[in-house]
């Protein structure tokens, strides 16, 4: 039976909230095997993997912080997947308990109990890659604990002794990993943007989290992942071999006066999912 657009969108929210993508789960399983027997790291990863299974089985959210919802909708779907339909799906998914009442007026702290208001959820319409003639709707849910660990650096940075070169970029990324410790729910994934203006920096860094973890890493990504994991911060900051699962880096042009390095920190619960519509 064909699902209506509304049903497709509610199902997208449900599965994004309750199911961890297979590439992320595989990376966590690999990390679990690598950690030492009897260590806090192994115990944390065992709990994480158990939690992933339990959430999927029971159709309950992987994490109670169901985060900021960001939708990426192909422009060709704009008349079908409208803002109104997306908001209706978010309201229904909230009522069903797939989303926490997680949307607050910034200063008063008043809750928009159905998770919709002007600006929530975040919806981008754009030209995104197609598959078999079908266009995508992608949802990312990013929790506040990890978002709080995202940072933006402006080079040169005197405190880090980081200049406007590749060494400087590396220092920013590793400093961000060190500052995050376990607070962002390590082992996390980093999206990095080198260059751009401040806004493009954060947007591009966050968009890197959409890339599959198992795609081939660049030389810089590989080097930084090794170095980040050598810090020994470990799962949830209790020490261990796995501080990050992956680093994804993109570049954007900059103006002569600015050189930003932006790091988007994502927790292990990297909740992203795409549906393809004809």
């Amino acid at each position, binding site marked *: 039976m064909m699902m209506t657009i509304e049903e497709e969108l509610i199902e997208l929210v449900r599965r994004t909230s309750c199911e961890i993508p297979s590439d992320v789960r595989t990376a966590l399983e690999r990390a679990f095997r690598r950690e030492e027997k009897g260590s*806090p790291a192994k*115990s*944390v990863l065992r*709990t*994480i993997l*158990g*939690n992933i299974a*339990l*959430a999927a089985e*029971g159709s*309950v*959210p*992987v*994490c*109670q*912080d*169901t985060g900021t919802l960001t939708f990426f909708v192909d422009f060709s779907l704009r008349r079908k997947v409208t803002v109104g339909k997306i908001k209706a799906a978010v309201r229904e998914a909230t009522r069903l*308990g797939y*989303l*926490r*009442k*997680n949307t*607050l007026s910034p200063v008063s*702290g*008043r*809750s928009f*109990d159905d998770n919709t208001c002007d600006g929530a959820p975040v919806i981008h319409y754009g030209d995104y890659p197609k598959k078999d003639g079908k266009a995508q709707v992608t949802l990312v849910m990013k*929790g*506040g*604990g990890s978002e*709080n660990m995202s940072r933006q650096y402006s080079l040169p940075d005197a405190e*880090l*002794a980081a200049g406007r070169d590749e060494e400087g970029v590396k*220092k920013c990324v*590793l*400093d961000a990993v*060190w500052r995050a*410790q*376990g*607070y962002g*729910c390590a082992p996390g994934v980093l999206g990095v943007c080198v260059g751009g203006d401040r806004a493009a920096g954060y947007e591009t860094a966050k968009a890197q989290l959409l890339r599959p973890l198992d795609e081939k890493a660049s030389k810089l990504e590989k080097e930084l992942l090794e*170095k980040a994991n*050598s*810090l*020994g*911060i*470990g799962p*949830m*900051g*209790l*020490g261990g071999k796995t501080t990050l699962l992956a680093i994804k880096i993109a570049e954007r042009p900059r103006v002569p006066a600015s050189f930003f390095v932006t790091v988007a920190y994502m*927790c*292990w*619960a990297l909740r992203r999912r795409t549906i393809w519509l004809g």
Partner: protein
Amino acid sequence: MARLKYPFGEKEVRSLKAGDTVSISGRIYTGRDKLHKFFADGGALPVDFRDGALYHCGPIVVKGANGEWQVKAAGPTTSVRENPYEPDFIAKSGVRIIIGKGGMDGATLAAMKRHGCVYVQATGGAAAVSAASVRRVAGVSMLDEFGAAEAVWHFDVENFTGVVAMDSHGVSLFDSVRESSRRRLAGLFGAR
């Protein structure tokens, strides 16, 4: 594994050491940003935390068809935001166990040593596992005032597990990881 049951005695809490795994059963209360600010501004605590546990958590709780609260997800939130309030909270409330993630600062560690309290790290994001240990929602306070994610939920839990990450002897696992990772970072950066 140390098995702790509410009410938590000072002696048994002081016997715990950083790195111990614990299993908690009985009553625990959630409380996060709004509760801490409310308390610091002079508000009266809505429940008695004496010899109790405070869980830094904003759960997803929905009302079932039978009118009973059902916990869908209840993992820990980042504790560091409560640093400014926690030493005073510990001193005045008599709380024995703080459950959260990420750890807390030196002033909180000192208050834990002074008053006999420990910090238990639950696994961040493991909301389904934590929710499964909640046997019953016994009640809720400040639901209208704070909203569902910030309200003080009264959970009766069974075998809620975590790691003692800060004990009442001044030891914090987070501090040792932070220090060793700082040295390694300095090594990667070269002499600074």
